[in-house]
């Protein structure tokens, strides 16, 4: 499967989705002008991955900031991951960032995927 690799910018996150090496990560800042358009390739990649997923997947979210339009798309990403067997979310937040911790907890209440919370 092809690797999805997007460099982070000041308003979009860095994204690496690499089945072969088992790297699945969204990190940085997410406040794109058009969040639906930005996350479309991510959702498409996950849909394909679901058909031939690794036995287990640790999907990393290491976000510094996301806006509300991105939060809806992050929920869409999580919903797409929900149907994949062996899925686990690693939700990173900066150790003094309660809002990011709470955001992760809220997402974990909205989807049926195990979440592991980690600080950085």
């Amino acid at each position: 499967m092809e690797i999805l690799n997007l460099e982070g910018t000041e308003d979009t996150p860095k994204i690496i989705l690499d089945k072969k090496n088992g790297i699945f990560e969204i990190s940085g800042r997410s406040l794109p002008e058009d969040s639906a358009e930005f996350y479309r390739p991510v959702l498409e990649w996950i849909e394909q991955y679901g058909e031939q997923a690794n036995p287990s997947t640790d999907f990393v979210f290491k976000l510094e900031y996301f806006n509300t339009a991105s939060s809806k798309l992050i929920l869409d990403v999580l919903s797409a991951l929900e149907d994949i067997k062996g899925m686990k979310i690693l939700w990173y937040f900066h150790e003094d960032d309660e809002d990011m911790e709470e955001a992760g907890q809220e997402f974990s209440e909205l989807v049926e995927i195990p979440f592991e919370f980690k600080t950085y």
Partner: protein
Amino acid sequence: MNFIYDLHRTMMSQNLILVYQGDFTQESTKSILSMAERNLDSSGEDSSIKRKVFNVMVEALQNIVKHSDELVDGQTRSHAAIFLIGKESNRYSIMSGNPVRKSNVERLKKNLEHINGLDKDGLKELYKEIIKNTTISEKGGAGLGFVDMARKSGGKLQFEFPEMNADYCFFCLKVNVPRDTE
């Protein structure tokens, strides 16, 4: 040219650290954010307060980009809106002003009043309710901006709608972020 001095004095007396007036786009949003960030960094502001201010700023700016109505007054068409940040010893204030058609005012007011009537848990429930059921609008919004601003602020959203002319009001919004960390 006394108006320059007057404007300067107004900014000083209102404790404004940043004022931007003009067209609002994603590009200007990014510039304003990076200017404000530099300002917060150089003043050594606490990182959790910095994040909250940044958060409210993004939602306020993107609200203008997505929802500000074009003002049509005779031959003149304008997208002009204003964005301000105030800094006092105990709080930051993120303020915005943009034209809205009078037909949109009632809906906006209702929405803001509803949000102001909720406590912390009520806001959390509303946020989850909206995010579960919303789809991204044609304008690219999720309908979560005001709820998020209220949550990050921990206070009420202050708003007024002074009349501009027969068809438009100027939507003034003020959101405070306290600087005292508990």
